[in-house]
């Protein structure tokens, strides 16, 4: 095209015009109106731009703009602007930027306020003078955060723990920001608080939480498809009912834990995201706990059993601090839940149940691991609060024992499963086994607390549980 060589139209602009089938004459008229080359190019590049639309726009602009470049506001636009309190000068600036009359009228009528419009117009004017680049702030590009981090995946892929490098690995004892700012980013002034209440690392931290997060994701499983449901066969009625009572108990426990952790998540400040991440996986585990046991209860002719009395739920719900919650939920309650899973696997009647309980064991073991490591961290920073933690456990154990006495259905269900039925002999066998398992649960519970830094719990444990505590064997010297 010969016209493309015309000196007043840059080659790249001419090329865009050609691609859009817009006559070069129109482009010249636009340039004569004072529109910058880049702006014309941008307008022409918009999807749906046609020669007709361009002609209409240019003609309108020629009508608006006088020979000296002064802008006149069409009467219909002026009427609308007056009605909505838009100063004429502002309208002129918008028109000068190339705003269409109809579009401008629509925006004014839509309720956009003059002050809102002015900020936008100012920005567009700056952009028109030096291109959009000149209008940018870009201060975020120069903030003094650590730059140049290049972490490569390892054997377990790219894990949360691996990206804690350089200054990003500094996890302060107190997180000073009340916003959602990620740890290691550069803070801005003036951002409102998000209302977190936990800002001290000792109140929520556990050294294993980044690993537990990744582990939970890697070891995820799917109740609908990972369990050999076809191996579940009809069971004697009392066994099925006992199984369903245990399922009901575990369903309730799952949703309780989901509620409790859900209540605490928004209290935890962003500086300790590893904890929030791990607890999110625990939330998902609680959902799966409910899912698997409801499905088991409803799939083999039994149905849901009886609800719990709920006393022990309250011991967990009523906790006023996260460490108290975690000690009672993650260590005390979950030691018992772990015991039920072990017992469930032990008494499983088919491959499905055996696998269900083994997989659930893995999930609750992560929660125990978080609980133990959190308590250990807390006590290492707050030696003076050991007695307080013992008091939480005193209360939790007392209510736990009370609940056990009151919750006849779960106790009897376990006896039936362990004894294999309801005959006198089976009941006696079931009761003996339940006593035997209690010694193990108490042993494991105390071992976890000892690992967390409370080896003296074995002396302070609730009297009703103390009978299950195995005494260390005496040495020969002591015996003598």
């Amino acid at each position, binding site marked *: 095209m010969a016209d493309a060589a015309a000196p007043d139209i840059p080659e790249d602009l001419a090329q865009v015009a050609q691609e859009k089938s817009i006559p070069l004459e129109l482009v010249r008229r636009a340039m004569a109106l004072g529109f910058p080359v880049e702006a014309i190019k941008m307008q022409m590049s918009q999807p749906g731009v046609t020669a007709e639309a361009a002609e209409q726009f240019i003609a309108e602009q020629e009508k608006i703009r006088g020979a000296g470049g002064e802008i006149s506001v069409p009467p219909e636009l002026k009427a609308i602007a007056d009605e909505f309190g838009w100063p004429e000068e502002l309208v002129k600036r918008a028109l000068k930027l190339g705003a269409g009359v109809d579009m401008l009228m629509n925006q004014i009528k839509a309720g956009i306020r003059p002050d809102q419009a002015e900020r936008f117009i100012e920005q567009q004017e700056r952009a028109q003078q030096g291109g959009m680049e000149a209008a940018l702030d870009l201060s975020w590009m120069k903030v003094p955060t650590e730059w140049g981090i290049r972490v490569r995946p390892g054997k377990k892929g790219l894990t949360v723990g691996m990206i804690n490098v350089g200054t990003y690995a500094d996890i302060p004892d107190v997180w000073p920001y009340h916003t959602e700012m990620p740890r290691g980013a550069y803070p801005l002034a003036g951002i409102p608080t998000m209302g977190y209440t936990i800002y001290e690392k000792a109140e929520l931290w556990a050294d294993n939480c980044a690993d537990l997060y990744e582990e939970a994701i890697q070891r995820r499983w799917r109740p609908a498809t990972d369990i050999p449901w076809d191996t579940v066969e009809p069971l004697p009625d009392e066994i099925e009912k006992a199984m369903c009572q245990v399922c009901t108990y575990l369903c309730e426990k799952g949703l309780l834990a989901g509620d409790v952790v859900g209540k605490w998540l928004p209290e935890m400040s962003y500086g300790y995201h590893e904890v929030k991440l791990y607890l999110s996986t625990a939330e998902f585990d609680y959902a799966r706990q409910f899912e698997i046991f409801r499905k088991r209860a409803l799939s083999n002719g039994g149905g849901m059993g009886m609800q719990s009395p709920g006393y022990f739920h309250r011991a967990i719900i009523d906790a006023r601090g996260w460490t108290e919650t975690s000690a009672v939920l993650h260590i005390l309650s979950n030691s018992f839940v772990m015991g039920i899973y*072990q017992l469930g696997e032990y008494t499983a009647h088919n491959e499905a149940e055996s696998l269900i309980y083994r997989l659930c064991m*893995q999930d609750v073991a992560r929660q125990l691991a978080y609980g133990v490591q959190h308590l250990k961290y807390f006590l290492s920073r707050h030696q003076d609060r050991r007695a307080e933690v013992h008091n939480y456990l005193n209360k939790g154990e007392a209510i736990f024992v009370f609940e056990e006495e009151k919750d006849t259905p779960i106790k009897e269900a376990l006896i039936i499963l362990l004894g294999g039925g309801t005959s006198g002999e089976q009941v006696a066998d079931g009761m003996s086994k339940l006593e035997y398992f209690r010694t193990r649960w108490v042993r494991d519970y105390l071992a976890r607390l000892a690992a967390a830094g409370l080896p003296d719990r074995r002396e302070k444990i609730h009297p009703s549980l103390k009978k299950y505590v195995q005494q260390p064997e005496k040495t020969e010297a002591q015996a003598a």
Partner: protein
Amino acid sequence: MTQGATTTKATFPSVEWFKAISAIVNDDPGYNHIGTCDATVGVRIPDLEKNYLLTFEAFEVSDVREVTPAGAEDTDFWLEMPYAKWKEMLENIKQNGKADLHHTLNTIDLEDPEGFARSHDGYRRDAFYRFNQTFQYFFDSSAKIDTAFV
């Protein structure tokens, strides 16, 4: 687990036996699918005075070695029972293609008052539960080899 063609023979207990099982699981997508496992596990057969250390790392069993009793106990947890019971468990696995309901690791653990899985640390012992399916899969995979017993 379905039992494939038997190609490997090894004697239990021996480093070769554990390495043979490790080679099977390290190449098994089913094992990989269970997820990562990071744990050091001791194996003790006191009446034979045999002790081993298995290292589970990410998606594989990365090391197997014979160690002293103290070496086997210097782990997250160790699995300990008399030789006859080890043999019973492995024969059951071979017979069924995997442990039947009475020979799973957890069941064996519960039936022993001292526990099959033992540890000096209540926290580290929980690795037995945290990665239970990995360990079960590991021993179940012994169905894929011909085990000779000493």
